């Protein structure tokens, strides 16, 4: 019988999840080690918690089986020395699932990354940040501001100077 952990969201809803699913979160893993099975998460809403649990459930199944030699070699080969919390997901089926998972609006995405950061779920943080990076790539500054509601705190003169200095970035080729 799998051990169950109870998570309580910010708005008071309770969620029972298998231990291995909950342990995708390093924070939860540490708390439970101190012998507490009911974990209140006041900063995480039910909506977000449901999504996070869904991700953890999917990835718990994968993480409980060690990578086969060929896929771990592929993972090691493809992860360069760049900064990243975790190795890239090498299983194409899982990667496809991840890509579907992050087809969310920016609001939801950011809610999830904040929760995942709080709960210390490295792979999920990585996945969402990668998605945000993809949404920034190729866009002009104004588009980026519009998409993410960023305020332009430069004066027109400052902005002009910046564009001139970095003109190579602003031309389209």
């Amino acid at each position: 019988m799998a051990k169950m952990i109870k998570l309580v969201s910010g708005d008071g809803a309770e969620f029972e999840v298998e231990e291995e699913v909950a342990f995708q979160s390093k924070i939860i893993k540490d708390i439970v080690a101190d012998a507490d099975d009911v974990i209140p998460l006041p900063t995480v809403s039910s909506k977000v918690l449901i999504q996070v649990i869904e991700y953890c459930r999917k990835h718990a199944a994968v993480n409980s089986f060690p990578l086969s030699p060929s896929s771990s070699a592929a993972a090691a080969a493809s992860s360069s020395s760049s900064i990243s919390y975790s190795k890239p997901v090498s299983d194409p089926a899982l990667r496809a699932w991840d890509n579907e998972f992050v087809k969310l609006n920016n609001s939801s995405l950011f809610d999830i990354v904040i929760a995942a950061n709080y709960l210390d779920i490295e792979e999920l943080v990585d996945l969402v940040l990668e998605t945000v990076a993809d949404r920034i790539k190729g866009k002009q500054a104004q588009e980026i501001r519009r998409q993410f509601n960023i305020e332009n705190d430069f004066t027109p003169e400052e902005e002009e100077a910046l564009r001139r200095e970095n003109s190579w970035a602003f031309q389209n080729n």
Partner: protein
Amino acid sequence: MQTKSRVQDYFDQIPDSLLLLIFNKLADARSLGRCSAVSKRFNSLVPLVHDLFVKIDRVVPVDGDCDFASLSSPKPSNIFAHLLKLILLTILRPFHHLLSTNGRNKPLFPQVSHHSPSRVLKNFTQVHNLRIELPAGDVGKEDGVFLKWRAEFGSTLQNCIVLGGTRIEHESTSSVNLQGSVEEDNGSLPESFYTNGGLKLRVIWAISSLLAASARHYLLHQIVKEHTTLRSLVLTDADGQGTLTMGVEQLKEFREKQLAPSASSNRTQVPATKMKLRYAPYLELRERMGVQGATLIVIKPVGEGTSCGYSSSKREMEALSCGAFDGPFQAAVKALAKRRTYLLEMNGF
């Protein structure tokens, strides 16, 4: 109507460390340049990225001075370069285009939207891992012929692996005319290899790859000098033909030692080298695709590795060549590594 009450900036919810992580994943210099004009917060974080990818739009040959590298203007006619070109041209008339691409006498000036990579990189002060992509491979080639090289440099060439051959797709193996038998395990080169220009062609591949690699190496000097935080540098091209890599120790060496330009001063001097050549008249890579005249050439400067025992340097070579390329090319390398080795030596140039 009043100005719309601004919905919260999404990025306000995440700490600088996560935003910086996003920029590191973005890595693309042009996108990051645009980000630095988005807001003051973005502007302060962009210069701190560790991972950077610069895509070169075009490479322009120029005469005389260019601000890209501290080059002296190229020597007008250098006897040695001329001689080498003449010898190679007469022997290999069909392959002369290998040497004429980019007008090799002229220094090359890579550009990102009419600016040099150095200029682009000025904005980034903490780059650890830099990847630069040229628009195309440097070595012209004929249809069906593929050539891939991977070179490691410190202040000078440390090693270069070259893989070449003619790729062929076919319906079934029986319809292909194989030179010699398919599996000649004694690995001796068939007579045809010598008589139908096979060896000369391979030497040209090796020289072309070394020329391309040393030209790229020379271009990097200013960047390496200016960015002391660099730990890894990879220079590839969009065709996936050639890769030049430098790691932490190699970068350090490059920065500290005096640059040794070749006589034509648009590339680093290539030292005298030993080449280990392996050849297979035909290799089946996977179903319906094979390589004819598959060749693996492992090139190292003379004098390197002689202090190690024979067996350890052999193992090192195996590891080196097996890791050089991906996918079907890695399989080709593995298959070729089993073949008999032929040794060649070449002077520096």
